[in-house]
């Protein structure tokens, strides 16, 4: 028994020793040194703006590099950044940017217009295999170059006139072009650094390592420990250094959202990337000032495979849509402040709002089902709902399964597949209904409506409607806002009448933020340039 006695005394001692080391929380210390502690969800694939696609990568790159324009956190309108000013030709096809004189790279080199030409050529070069190259297809001949139909980059509508003038010629007018180029696919890279570690289109080169990275953003890359931490420090060469109040940012790749929330609660993080569903209710009642529920430019919907019986019948699709109690879902199940989706595009996308097309009407839904010929003696054939393995999809699918069972009396089976298997199944149209979500990259209805044009890359429903295609195509050619929005709403009316997709709710970005963080204004693109952030 002596042994266990020693054991207990040992633990007691360790406990006392640890508890008496009282220290101010990490957040208080960091706030004093103006270092932002940022929960960044996962380990970034890479820090090369032309290769990465995810949000965690973008959050870091945004501090290291800066494009021609940045977005105003309040209204997401484009602000001058590396380009101090610009002129647009009358036909809206040619944009001329004046590069800021005092814009410098972190190694002191001045930022030249040719750097941008080099960068656009890099992301468009086929060998790099960039998944976001299509963002630049609005430039003349960019698509052809990227599909290696032409291989001389000089034919692409990008020209550097001297060191400080950059001219971009588009193949069609793009009203939202100035906010489009704030996307990281348009970011410049430092040509000498790229060429030091390989050719212009070498993928996965070592240039993004802390010791090699050269950027033109407000911060420089200080250290990168895999799955542990990424530290950026304030850059000395940034042209607008005075207005940058942060001294540095620590990015923590904490994958488990429960761990992230706990770290926040013990003062180890200023901001988290998300908030676990079940904690929202607690924060809403106990610490409302730390909880943020910002609208987010994205829609959660179910894909419908219009070729499979019985879903090929429009009435059936409509019945299914009307039998979903979206209020109950968002209020009781999700509790994340999400808005029930009565249309496909979220409200107020750059001023465009479609209005409510879908309501919760079970009698109408049952009537439609009967019209489609399904009732007691002709039972509804088996239909499956596919979703990928994730906590909230799991809950939502079961709730909707139950709603369709009670309100329409139909039984659907739920199939839960691992992420990549799920993607493969949807791409090969081997499903009846499938969960899908779309978060827009830029603030324009086009990003939502051009998804469903006939054999569009992301149109996995097999649905095709020529009038819809022509309307969306026409809207993309016109620069006048009212006319474009009229065409878009006409197209969305067709979409919501045919219902190849069943919109469920509009995303919200729910996260936790410490009261000492200033200037983190909410916006639907979740875009927060670190220049405007401060710590009290």
């Amino acid at each position, binding site marked *: 028994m002596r042994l266990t006695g020693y054991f207990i005394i040992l633990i007691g001692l360790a406990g006392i020793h640890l508890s008496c080391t009282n220290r101010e929380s990490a957040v208080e210390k960091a706030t004093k040194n103006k270092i932002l502690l940022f929960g960044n969800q996962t380990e970034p694939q890479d820090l090369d703006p032309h290769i990465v696609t995810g949000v965690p990568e973008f959050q870091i790159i945004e501090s290291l590099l800066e494009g021609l324009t940045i977005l105003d956190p309040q209204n997401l309108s484009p602000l001058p950044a590396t380009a101090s000013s610009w002129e647009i030709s009358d036909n809206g096809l040619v944009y001329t940017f004046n590069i800021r004189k005092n814009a410098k790279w972190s190694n002191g080199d001045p930022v030249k217009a040719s750097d941008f030409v080099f960068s656009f050529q890099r992301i468009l070069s*086929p060998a790099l295999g960039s998944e976001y190259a299509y963002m630049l297809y609005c430039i003349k001949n960019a698509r052809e170059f990227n599909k290696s139909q032409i291989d001389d980059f000089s034919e692409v509508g990008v020209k550097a006139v001297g060191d400080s003038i950059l001219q971009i010629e588009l193949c069609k007018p793009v009203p939202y072009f100035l906010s489009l180029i704030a996307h990281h696919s348009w970011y410049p890279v430092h040509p000498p650094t790229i060429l030091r570690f390989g050719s212009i289109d070498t993928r996965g080169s070592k240039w993004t390592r802390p010791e090699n990275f050269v950027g033109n953003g407000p911060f420089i890359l200080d250290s990168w420990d*895999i799955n542990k931490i990424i530290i950026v420090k304030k850059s000395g060469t940034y042209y607008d250094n005075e207005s940058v109040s942060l001294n540095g940012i620590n990015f923590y790749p904490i994958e488990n959202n429960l761990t992230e929330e706990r770290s926040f609660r013990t003062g180890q993080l200023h901001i988290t990337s998300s908030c676990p569903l079940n904690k929202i209710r607690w924060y809403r009642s106990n610490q409302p000032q730390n909880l943020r529920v910002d609208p987010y430019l994205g829609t959660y919907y179910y894909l419908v495979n219009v070729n499979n019986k019985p879903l090929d019948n429009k009435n059936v699709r409509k019945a299914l849509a009307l039998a979903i109690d979206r209020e109950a879902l968002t209020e009781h199940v999700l509790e994340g402040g999400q808005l029930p989706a009565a249309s496909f595009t979220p409200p107020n996308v750059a001023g465009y709002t479609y209005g409510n097309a879908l309501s919760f009407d079970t009698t109408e839904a049952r009537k439609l089902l009967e019209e489609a010929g399904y009732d007691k003696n002709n039972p509804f054939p088996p239909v499956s709902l596919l979703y990928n393995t994730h906590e909230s999809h799991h809950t939502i699918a079961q709730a909707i399964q139950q709603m369709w069972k009670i309100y329409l009396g139909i039984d659907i089976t739920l199939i839960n597949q691992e992420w990549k298997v799920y993607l493969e199944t949807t791409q090969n149209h081997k499903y009846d209904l499938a969960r899908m979500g779309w978060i827009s990259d830029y603030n324009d209805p086009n990003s939502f409506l051009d998804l469903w044009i006939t054999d569009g890359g992301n149109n996995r429903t097999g649905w095709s409607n020529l009038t819809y295609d022509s309307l969306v195509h026409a809207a993309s050619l016109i620069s006048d806002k009212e006319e474009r929005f009229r065409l878009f709403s006409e197209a969305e009316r067709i979409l919501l009448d045919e219902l190849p997709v069943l919109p469920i709710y509009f995303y919200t970005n729910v996260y936790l933020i410490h009261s000492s963080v200033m200037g983190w204004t909410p916006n639907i693109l979740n875009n927060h340039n670190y220049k405007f952030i401060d710590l009290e």
Partner: protein
Amino acid sequence: MGKFILKRIFLETLPSLLVIITVTFFLIRLAPGGPFSSEKQISAEVLEQLNSHYGMDKPLFAQYFSYLLNICKGDFGPSFKYPGRTVTELISESFPVSLELGLYALIFAILTGILAGVVAALKPGSFMDYFTMSVSMAGICIPAFVLGPLLVLVFSLKFGWVNVSGWNTFSDRILPSITLGMMYVAYIARLTRGGMLETMVQDFIYTARSKGLSETAVIFKHALRGALLPVISFMGPAAAGMISGSFVVETIFSIPGLGRFFVTAAFNRDYTMILGTVIFYAIIIIIFNTLVDIIQTILNPRLRNY
């Protein structure tokens, strides 16, 4: 002994590794969805470029042999998910963390497990027996993904003794190693107790007592050696499992270990990473199993005569 180890390495380990690599290489190709399939549809040209960059466009057998060749050169290929990093780099940077965590957990599990097993075996059927056994069995029925957060709730959030997550100071090591080790405590305690009960009734225990040895000497010098045989053969794979990291513990405490890659590599269809981690784990398993066999022959001389 040396001959035994050399024989084990050349005659047995290399063929096993070859079999593992071959089976895994072709098996992962069966899993649907490739490393590049993502939510946003990729254009055919881009996909084609990516495949050629990673040599995926060559016929499967050609890829297989070039992969084998590269391994002999020590190059395990670039990771698909983290283009800027090679597999060797990812493993070599995250393995030391898992090794350290695994060792702490191993020590914790062995000490607590054997102590609990011995204490329980001393007075079978007494309160002490059931108390130690139920506490050690808690490790089995409270899985890591419950025990971890529970410990955090008590020791970090309530008492504030240690951080919730991270891997910097020594105090960050305590909770994760207890969580990782706790499950094995149950196995070790139960097996030790079983072994002790069987050995304590042997004749040589009476001889030892008749020699005037103190009870603790009888237990730890004589009884324990025989009792630990089943435990040791269990410890081989268990230790290998702990050392190579655990996905659950590392995600709960956000520890930059290797365990995480075993599962995420599979989810990302990061072929080179899967192969890298499988080979790495195979080597660890074979090392530990060899170690266990050696320890068993040391402990049990009767096994030595083959």
